[in-house]
């Protein structure tokens, strides 16, 4: 799960978006895509973050890190959290 490529994380974020809003399957999503251009209601965006947490096994909301505006920023948050996981000694 840990140490994923940027492309893999982006793909996971696109997948989370398309679960919450299936019509995004028809839209081109890129790292520069801004979430506020996708006509998502607040509950939709919360669910996108929930789906990201599911996919990557990280906790974003509890650490109040759900402040990203673009896919790229979301990816950076996810990568930081994934990296923190790998650097923690396993007990």
């Amino acid at each position, binding site marked *: 799960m840990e140490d994923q490529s940027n492309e893999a994380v982006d793909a996971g974020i696109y997948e989370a978006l398309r*679960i919450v*809003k*299936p*019509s995004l399957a028809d839209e081109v999503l890129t790292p520069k895509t801004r979430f506020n251009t996708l006509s998502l209601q607040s*509950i939709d965006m919360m*669910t996108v973050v*929930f789906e990201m*947490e599911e996919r990557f096994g990280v906790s974003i909301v509890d650490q109040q890190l759900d402040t990203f505006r673009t896919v790229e920023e979301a990816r950076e948050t996810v990568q930081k959290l994934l990296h923190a996981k790998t650097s923690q000694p396993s007990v």
Partner: protein
Amino acid sequence: MTRRVVVTGIGCVSSLGVGTSALWEGLVRARTAITPTRLVQAGLEVTLPAAPVTGFVPLDHFTADELPMRDAFAQYAVVAAREAMRDAGLGRGETIPGDTAVVLGSGGGGEHTREEAAVRLFGERKLRCSPMLVPKTNNQAAVGFVSMEFQVTGPSFVISTGCAAATHAIAQAFHMIRHGVVRRAITGGSEAPVALSVFQAFDAARVLSHTTCRPFSRERDGMVIGEGGGILVLEELESARKRGAFIYAEVLGAGMSADASSSVYPREQGPAQAIAMALREARLNADQIDYINAHGTGTQVNDRVETMAIKLAFGEHARELTVSSTKSLHGHTFGGAGGIETVATLLALKHGVAPPTVNYLGPDADCDLDYAPNDPKPRRIDVALKQSFAFGGLNAVLVLRRDVVQ
């Protein structure tokens, strides 16, 4: 001053199909939708008779983006409401927004979604829930979607008295129009309880049949769970007349009562009191009623006590009535039951046919009225009753007359 209230539109999703035509065809052809149904969840499995809605394709009715937030019970309500509004000749934007109410019944809300969340939480031990869980499963979700669909901004709420919820909802909507609170209402109810946890809960109370639903019959052994929704458009008589709407029936009265006796064991006095109250409001005598669409669950106790209640309320006239339970055809849809069954009652008034009580094997000593056994019964039906009873001993009765009499 009170206003007169009429039904100008009906809509339905049931195990007999999508739409009121499918419902009526199933009823008069005595074609039961009850079938052995296998439910699987979290590696557990149970097969019991049930009446699920089949042939309902969500994407035929909603966009893919609308579905993640809508449990089946809310989908049924919206689709039935669309049919009812179309039938009433009212479209989006024609509702007199603030002067229309949405009052719907639901006993359990998003049962499917809640069950899946429980599996995740306790079975898979995943602490975080989907942010959509609450708005998707709460009992008022269907009311919210119906109000949004038709841009209704008037009083909108859910009534949650289990198996009587939709009948209570219609009673409430009727009284709101009658007393001038609003001019129109979208009312009825829906439920989607064909879920393993619901089956196991009802089975534990020993009310579920393991064969089929045979109300008022000898050898009856319980109820069968169904799903769907039934919706009516109620309207002030004058407003309906002004726009030349077709009138299915006038709602003349609604009676409600509590047994104040037991959570699960009904007493005949409660339903009889609700019938008397409904007739009083309707200003009708007992002998003016022709047909009763019964609660008729198919349990030993309900059908015996319901028969006693009818005899208590109607006296000698009980023998002249036709009493049938369409639950034998579309299952017991709990909070949707009063909606679907009131639609069935309105169609019985329209066509002059009492729908049958199917799966009937023969008379039972405790149930000795005319139940229209196995075959639809053509007969004159001027005035009909719809009655529903719920756990808790809560009862609701509607009086519907086909013709608007001056």
